[in-house]
């Protein structure tokens, strides 16, 4: 394919908020994620209960 068209990344991309290395590490750090798994499930269940 010929790469026609604009080179897409715009100025916005340069000013984006990026996560710290610690945040990225926590995203797949098993003990922390096991805890988040419980917390998020509880939050979601609470949301569903609220409607029922």
């Amino acid at each position: 394919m010929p790469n026609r068209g604009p080179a897409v990344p715009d100025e916005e991309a340069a000013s984006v908020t990026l996560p710290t290395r610690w945040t990225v590490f926590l995203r797949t750090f098993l003990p922390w994620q096991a805890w988040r798994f419980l917390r998020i499930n509880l939050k979601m269940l609470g949301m569903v209960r609220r409607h029922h």
Partner: protein
Amino acid sequence: MSRVVVLGSGIAGHTAASFARRWLPRTETVTVVSPVDRYNWVPSNIWVGVGLMQPHQVTFPLAPVYERHGIEFVHGFARQIHPEGDAGDSRPFVAVERVAGGDGDFLRLPYDFLINATGPRLRFDMTEGLGPEANSMSVCTPEHAQLAARALDRAVERMRRGQRQRFVVGVGHGGCTCEGAAFEYIVNLEFELRARKVRELAEIVWITNEYELGDFGMAGMQMRRSGYLIPASIFTASLFAERGISWITRAHVRKVEPDRLSYETLDGGEAELGFDFAMLLPPFSGVGLRAFDRQGTEITDRLFQPNGFMRVDGDYTPRPFEEWSARDWPRTYQSPAYPNLFAAGIAFAPPHPISRPHTSPRGTVITPAAPRTGMPSAQIGRAVARSVVDMLRGAPRPTATASMAEMGAACVASAGANPFSGTAASMTVYPVVPDYERYPGYGRDMKRTFGEIGLAGHWIKILLHHMFIYKAKLRPGWPLIPE
């Protein structure tokens, strides 16, 4: 003996039929009409589209489930609703075109209560060259998703031979909804290209009709983080930038050719973008049901909005954005024209979009339509079934409500499927439709609106896949699993 007829066996229709069956004695009939005889857990089509699942893992045959639970199944397309019957018989009925019989094999299916849950018609025809039969891919059905996975394999092959490839993912029209599904696809695609070790040869571009990233057709959301309320646009931009995905917002795709697409933007600009692989979701409309009165006069426009979605108890008075209110949104999903007629899921007509509307200088509306995602669709299906069952027992009006302005939604957007290195964005919003009177400022309850990215979200996504397929199979304990 009375009969409840449900049109459609998707998330809304299947939920409505299952609960109606559970709550009604076996002397009453529950009938499902659907042109598709397999249930599809649509959210997992994303994984079919990147080749991680096969269609049989996201679908199962409905007939055995319905047989076991005493639900009658008619394999066909509902075409016409006759809410007053006809000259010969005043009992309301649906005219169903059976799949097996081919053109013209019509069945007259009488009903006491009718639930229209026919979902969307995929309007690839609204953009020239859009769709799997033309020049772009889709993941709306398992078959489409499988075609997308094969096209992805071919692109990966080309990369393995050293060719650079551009992947364009997003929505194929200014009036699309379902940006969330396209978002899930693009981040999964990026993850998959990394897993297949060809990422460095890929350029990945997001194209959307959203005014800002993270709008998702629900006017975005704000989340509490470090003492600030941060808009979803910041998180979405961050997620894209981290993954090297670039983006084009405020775009209406006008035409898709085999190797390029042309689009218009809100500021009046026009541009072309070349691609090797494009997955662009289509706009939706209603499925085109028609309605007739007793004399055979067409009354489709009394029951349906011009876009084919069914009018229910919402307030459809056209008003400027500043005057929209949470109260415009339907609560019972009963047709104002006939009290024994309801709509559920995507089939009901929203009163207006949720996001602020925008029009380009050429007059093209470039605004996401209101999404009706899985959780609200199922909750509406259940509420409608409750009302129908109670009305059959003598209640004078619907007894259950499920307004999108009074319910929250939990959404888990997969961003890479691997049990150890995958991630997903988990989000909850309450309510789905912002209510600026109850929650001044942002329209949402900030304690119940949150989002985060992590492996836990991926585990939840897997759990939901198995749990919801188990529930849809109506296995023991299914009613305990929340919608």
